């Protein structure tokens, strides 16, 4: 089961990334758990400065951009 976390303070880009991540997980047929981290101190604890960021199984997969669904799908498979 993949643990996905979206790091962001809640603006439209973070919402879009969360949506894309869910779409990608469903398309890849992968069981997933999605968490949205909005507290800045928690975001910092991942070592991330540019949001939105995608974290897969505890590792930062991307920072500062809204990845398209296909890119996330490749990372999950």
């Amino acid at each position, binding site marked *: 089961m993949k643990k996905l976390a979206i790091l*962001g*303070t*809640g*603006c*439209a*880009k*973070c919402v*879009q990334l969360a949506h894309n991540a869910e779409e990608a997980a469903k398309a890849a047929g992968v069981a997933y758990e999605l968490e949205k981290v909005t*507290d*800045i*101190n928690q*975001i*910092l*604890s*991942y*070592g*991330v*400065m*540019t*949001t939105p960021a995608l974290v897969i199984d505890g590792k*930062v997969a991307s*920072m*500062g*951009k*809204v990845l*398209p669904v296909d890119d996330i799908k490749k990372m999950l498979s």
Partner: protein
Amino acid sequence: MSDFSPPGTTAEERVAAAGRMNPVTALRGIFAAIEWKAFAAILAIFLAAFYLPVGTPRFDNAVMESLHLVKWYAREHVVLCLVPAFFIAGAIGAFVSQASVMKYLGPRAPKPLAYGVASLSGTVLAVCSCTILPLFAGIYRMGAGLGPAATFLYSGPAINVLAIILTARILGVELGVARSVGAVVFSIFVGLLMHLIYWREEQRKVEAALAMPEPPETRPLYQVIVYFAAMVAILVFANWGKPDSTTGLWHAIYSAKWLLTAAAAAVFAVTLVLWYGARLGKVVAGAALTIAAAVAYPHEPMVPFLAGTLGLAFVTMEPDGDLAEWGRLTWGYAKQIIPLLLGGVLVAGLLLGRPGHEGLIPNAWVEGAVGGNSLVANFFASIAGAFMYFATLTEVPIMQGLMGSGMGKGPALALLLAGPALSLPSMLVLRSIMGTRKTIVFVSLVVVLSTVCGLIFGNT
């Protein structure tokens, strides 16, 4: 018989609750069942409609002003200025290496360099105001420290590409330049002062390693420069203003502005094909469309310009790669910012009217509060700006309205410097990052420096 119990309860819970019934739980039960939020909303809308002051001259005029202003923006600024600005902002996001900038803001960067980079990096790092706060937190806790972080926080919102372009276009080049230069110079002051005030304090550095963004494949610098120069040239020449005199360099450029725009566009198209991997077929199609539009509508330059823009959008529609990323970022900015700007224009028009006209707020009030260049006017503008929330770019139509209603140019700059950087909600977030005391100090510094800047500018 209708059931007044809260939704989601089991039968046992309801029975138990009935046994514990008292006036408070009864009321709570009723509130939960009758959708009181929906009711309150409908009541509010009804009361607003019932008491709508339609028919009073001031209100009717204000509504018309609001609509006039929206039309003016749509006609004068959207195609020639806002759309190219979105493409430029998108290009910065897609083609300028954020990583190479961020390494100067890391914990081991030499401090003078960190301040300089922090004051300028807003152009490259943050167009969206929502990315500024996490970046600030990161630079403060994991990077170069409180000083450069404060510098970045003050200058970032003022020197993002869209803000500069739109300020210069609508509020005038003088104010656009003053805003940018003022923000950069005084941001360094703010950062240094914060650093000095708190230099004895030890900062808690977060234990995580700073996750640097991946360095991209390096593109030769001259390619990036020519590409951006061509885009900026298109923007600048297409928007070249008509001068008062009919002689001189300014006027010569004005007479030839569309030829110059076309020349810049041609250079731009070539860079796209040669260096940026654009498909020749698509670029040729876009160029053909633009030329055809120019021939068909020789006296309406907006038409071929729009055709060129559509051609460019077509070029970025690739399945993958840098061009696609550029297109996505550009479209993302457009989707995010156009509704906000539209809202800002409508509100500014309603409250303040077009320059030279009045909205709901009489010009006399504006002049009384922020006219001229007194210390009070600058200070008032600065404080109001610090607490008011300005969505990205909405400060421009609001400023335009205020200046048209009698605000002096000094207080205007004060508001422009304090406004976008701060707002009550952002102050609360800052408080959670650096604590109440530092936040108060930062806000006070911003207000004081913006007031000073305004005073100086108002006297030039």
